[in-house]
């Protein structure tokens, strides 16, 4: 998508030489492309309109720098503006220490509240809190049981509701039971509700009034369309939402809701959910989000994720190799060793800019199968590892025997490997124009 946007914008500006000037006339076509990109990312219609007007105002009359093309400069303006509107620097999350401090999670049905309750417990446990999860969802079948399992898996206690208890009553009980557990952070999971459902909103308000929460988070699915705005507005005005947690960003949703929410409520996006597991929660980074909304892919996160497991030098090396397309089986094996900590390979690949999901077809590294793959690679000679193209039929047989696997498995691995190489090649090409100077990396 971003390669498309960049390309389109470059085309639009083709006539304009550098040292020209951005004018209302010559940015018109480019703005149209940006508008389209924002709407495809599910940025709200009105918010998009405002954004375009704002950018136009900023861009018109600017001199084009000699070092870059007008297209690049234009995109830089868009990008910076977007980062700015998304909240500039990521805000700090400071919670007071009380007995207990209260967090309340609200949102539409199925957005990810219960799962996020467990993730947030983890997050704050690392910041000197002792969390306890409180089941205030008395509506959804097995909701309390789900929360209990989430709490158990994360290693924290939980408080269930008792027959006939209202959410506000569970929460009231939790205020002193938390102390009995030695906990000082009560995370309240509530039922999913539509913002137009009066009774359910009143129920949530009653809970709010009972505990007077220190942090109210609206949990919103990143795939949400145009309605994100009315959802955000309603929850914020009726339940005093302090910030947003945007879930399911591990997919290919462009997450335009982040911009819409921020614009219409003035509240920040604080967290993003990037998976179903407990550790799949990250702080919100406006610059990454801006790139994502424009369709640039999330290179920053990719590199960071690599850095968490590799040391920095190796991460840089890997990145360089990915870009130079010199990735071989030695690297592949190195990477496999780290894979368990990094998460599924398709997750990693999906963060690479220009990566299309269809390119990922046929490439599949099952976490459970990594042992066999490692065995196969170990049975290759060093020169085979460096030059996988040299592995012919008889070598394949030998490798299969040596690793205790089958020729089919060796074939499959090689096929996947070449597929991956091809993909990196494509990526490398895209990179050249996808990253104008001055962009993050």
């Amino acid at each position, binding site marked *: 998508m971003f390669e498309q946007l960049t390309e389109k914008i470059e085309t639009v500006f083709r006539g304009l030489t550098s040292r020209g000037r951005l004018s209302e006339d010559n940015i018109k076509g480019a703005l149209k492309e940006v508008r389209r990109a924002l709407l495809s990312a599910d940025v709200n219609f009105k918010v998009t309109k405002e954004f375009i007007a704002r950018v136009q105002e900023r861009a018109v009359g600017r001199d084009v720098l000699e070092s870059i093309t007008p297209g690049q400069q234009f995109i830089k303006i868009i990008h910076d503006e977007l980062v700015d509107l998304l909240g500039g620097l990521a805000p700090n999350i400071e919670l007071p220490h009380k007995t207990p401090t209260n967090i309340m999670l609200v949102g539409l049905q*199925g957005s990810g509240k219960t799962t996020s309750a467990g993730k947030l417990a983890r997050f704050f446990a690392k910041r000197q809190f002792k969390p306890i999860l409180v089941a205030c969802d008395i509506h959804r079948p097995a909701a309390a*049981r789900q929360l209990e399992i989430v709490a158990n898996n994360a290693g924290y206690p939980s408080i269930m509701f008792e027959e006939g208890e209202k959410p506000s009553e569970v929460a009231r009980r939790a205020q002193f039971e938390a102390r009995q557990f030695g906990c000082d952070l009560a995370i309240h999971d509530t039922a999913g509700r539509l913002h137009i459902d009066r009774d359910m909103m009143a129920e949530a308000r009653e809970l709010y009034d009972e505990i007077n929460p220190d942090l109210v988070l609206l949990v919103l699915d990143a795939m949400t*369309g*145009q309605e994100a705005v009315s959802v955000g507005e309603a929850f914020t005005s009726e339940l005093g939402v302090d910030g947003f947690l945007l879930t399911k960003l591990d997919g290919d949703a462009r997450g335009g809701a982040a911009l819409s929410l921020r614009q219409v409520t003035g509240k920040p996006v604080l967290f993003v959910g990037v998976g179903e597991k407990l550790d799949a929660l990250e702080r919100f980074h406006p610059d990454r989000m801006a790139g994502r909304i424009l369709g640039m892919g999330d290179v920053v996160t990719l590199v960071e994720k690599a850095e968490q497991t590799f040391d920095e030098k190796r991460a840089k090396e890997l990145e360089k190799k990915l870009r130079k397309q010199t990735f071989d089986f030695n690297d592949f094996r190195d990477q496999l060793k780290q894979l368990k900590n990094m998460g599924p390979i*398709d997750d990693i690949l999906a963060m690479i800019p220009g990566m299309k999901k269809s390119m990922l077809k046929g490439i599949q590294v099952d976490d459970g199968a990594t042992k066999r793959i490692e065995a196969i690679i170990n049975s290759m000679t060093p020169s085979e590892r460096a030059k996988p193209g040299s592995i012919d039929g008889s070598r394949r047989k030998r490798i299969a025997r040596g690793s205790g696997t089958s020729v089919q498995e060796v074939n499959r691995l090689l096929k996947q490997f070449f597929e991956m190489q091809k993909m990196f090649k494509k990526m490398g090409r895209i990179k050249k124009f996808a990253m104008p100077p001055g962009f993050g990396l």
Partner: protein
Amino acid sequence: MALDKLKKALGKTRSILNTRVEDLFVPGKTLEEEDLELLEEALIVADVGVEATENIIEHLKVAAREQKIPPGGPLAILETEIRKMVDEYEDPAPWRPTEKPHVILLVGVNGTGKTTTAGKLAKYINDKGGKSLLAASDTFRAAANEQLAIWSERSGADIVRSVDGADPASVAFDAVSKAISGGYDAVIVDTAGRLHTKVNLMEELKKIARVCGKKLPGAPHDIFLVLDATTGNNGINQARLFEEVIGITGIILTKLDSTAKGGIALAIMRELNIPVRLVGVGEKIDDLIEFDSASFAAGLFED
């Protein structure tokens, strides 16, 4: 009755567009440039998606130029189009007693309403005189199994339960076997939510489908993508990839009782030719209704 429910569900208030769009549906009205802009806004706001919106507008422009706007106004074009797509399928019934048992797989991204819909669908089939069996093939999500068990009680349908971490395909296999030997008319397989971008999880889905077919040739007879009506442009990616990997026979559009219009379903119907079969309009067991193209098309613009 069902129609009223959908109408009620769709009849939410939205302020901005109200009367202006309605004017467009006055018979004999000519289409001006600003009408088209208005319509574009209405379509985008209804989540029809950028691409489909552009196509529709282009389509209308041509129709207007050739003076082919039907008596019902531009809306009629959309409605006819949607209806055509629904009618193209010989037998759009979500459950067909001719298949015994009729195996239905419910798939989709996380949290769209698969498990809830499984419960509703079991009731829907039972109400039509069938005997349905639920299969708890989501062995991953915490308490998914317990959740479906409650829906089994509510619907009166039997269930093949599973344990956490069990192989979802083998649960489906057991369910199909049980359905054959126990004389069930339908098997509804609830699967774990998965993002369409996760290759491994999509492969797992393929395996579930394959294993059903092994036990009963022709199964699964239907694979329904459960789509949340609040979804924006991403819905088209979801449908495209699920279609590519396992093939989708229909959409179940949930949460249409919200203010969302579910317009992305229109884009999916247009681009991928996959019809919407059923619509979820609430969290209760009877909140599942058959798709009606006319009220859906009208609902897109209703305020």
